């Protein structure tokens, strides 16, 4: 079971002041194996122009604040996403794109694709749709900004508090495939 509710680990005090700057300068890292990645270039470039909100793409996990999981995740790539997430520096947020990370989407009965991302990583916001259009993505980003300002987007603290729970879930699904993936440890 999850140990703490979101209310107890809300940001307050100095963090709330810094959150004002954090929400206006979200640098994102996209994990682009899913089909949602194709909606990002129009969102970034001149048609929808997400740079208005101070957002921009970054090249490595070290520099980024926001991890975008753009579509389905196979078990093999889940491992990489977890590495990537743990390399990012706090405060950090995760956005899940499309139906696949919410309930599996069209891959709901696949043997190699995970159905709920929230079991393995603290997802701050999910944008539903298959695929979400740029308007929906921008709407999602503004919602995340509001949540950050209120101090409610604290997925990274949740991950720290419930590390054992998340790790157990991750081990469960990764061990299932260890017969295939053992070679690369």
């Amino acid at each position, binding site marked *: 079971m999850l140990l703490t509710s979101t209310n107890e680990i809300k940001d307050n005090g100095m963090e709330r002041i810094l959150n004002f*700057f954090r929400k206006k*300068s979200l640098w994102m890292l996209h994990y682009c194996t899913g089909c949602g990645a194709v909606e990002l270039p129009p969102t970034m470039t001149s048609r929808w122009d997400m740079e208005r*909100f101070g957002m921009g793409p970054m090249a490595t996990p070290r520099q980024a604040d926001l991890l975008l999981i753009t579509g389905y995740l196979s078990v093999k790539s889940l491992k990489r996403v977890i590495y990537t997430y743990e390399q990012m520096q706090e405060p950090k947020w995760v956005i899940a794109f499309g139906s696949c990370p919410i309930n599996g989407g069209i891959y709901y009965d696949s043997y190699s694709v995970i159905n709920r991302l929230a079991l393995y990583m603290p997802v701050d916001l999910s944008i539903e749709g298959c695929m979400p259009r740029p308007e929906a993505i921008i709407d999602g980003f503004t919602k995340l900004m509001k949540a950050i300002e209120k101090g409610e987007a604290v997925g990274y603290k949740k991950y720290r508090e419930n590390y054992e729970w998340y790790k157990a879930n991750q081990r469960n699904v990764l061990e299932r495939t260890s017969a295939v993936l053992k070679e690369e440890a």
Partner: protein
Amino acid sequence: MVNIMLRFLFAAFTSIIMGLLFMGIGRKFIARIRRHYAGPFYQSFIDVIKLFSKKSISHNWIMDFGVMMGFAGIIATIIFMPIGPFNVFSQMQGNIIIIIYFMTIGYLGMAMGVAASGNPNATIGIARALTLMLGYEIPFVLTVILLVFANNSSLLQVMVVNQQGGFMEWNAIRYPFAFLAALIALQGMLGEQPFDAMIAPSEIASGPMVELSGKFLGFGFLQHAAQIFLETGIIVNMFLGGSQNFFIFFAKQLALYLLTVAVSGIFPRYRFEDAVKFFWMAPTALAAIQLIIFII
């Protein structure tokens, strides 16, 4: 002593604040070239505050030291540059040879810091940056030699005084080929396109910055801001007549920076060996032609 400290702090803060402001305006400008809007002009300040509020990871003390040395190297160079009517040491008057020597400390510090982070992409990136430095230093030094001979002095202050009396007296008008060479060299110094092979984000994952997180990247940002201020400032003093007024000086710097940004907005990227070859051919030839014209 206190007086000198205060003057030093003034120079350091002015360079950082104006540099960040230039960066923000430059981003706005490039966005308009590409027909979109980008964030507010103070976006760079927000970014820096956010970066310093993040947690950061250090790999070893050499990385901490190198990043600090890179930042300090650029700030130390700014001490020697006349900012409009202002000089930190009033008797130094901006010796251009000292400035050229000190400017490399920033790059070397950055090289040490990011190489210590152990990421191969960072090493490739900084190797490219230092190779590119070999490229643009040659035309830049040729223009410096020209101006030193023309003014019988290596002091920036003397060069500024010799350019007073209307824009027809500016070195940019007197020595147009050398000015062009210096502009191309400036493009390389600032690492803007087409000479940005060292930060190529999709090829080597932003090169030197690849392992920098939080405060380290914040220092990288501040270093770049101070670098913009320093390098545009040198060119303004050398070719655009400096100024006795802070605001005119800053305006000239901004115009120069926006020119650089405009060029970078429409150019793709050179491979770095091609960039070095280009620097050794075109701008070097321009500077050499100007030197020959001057001697004749």
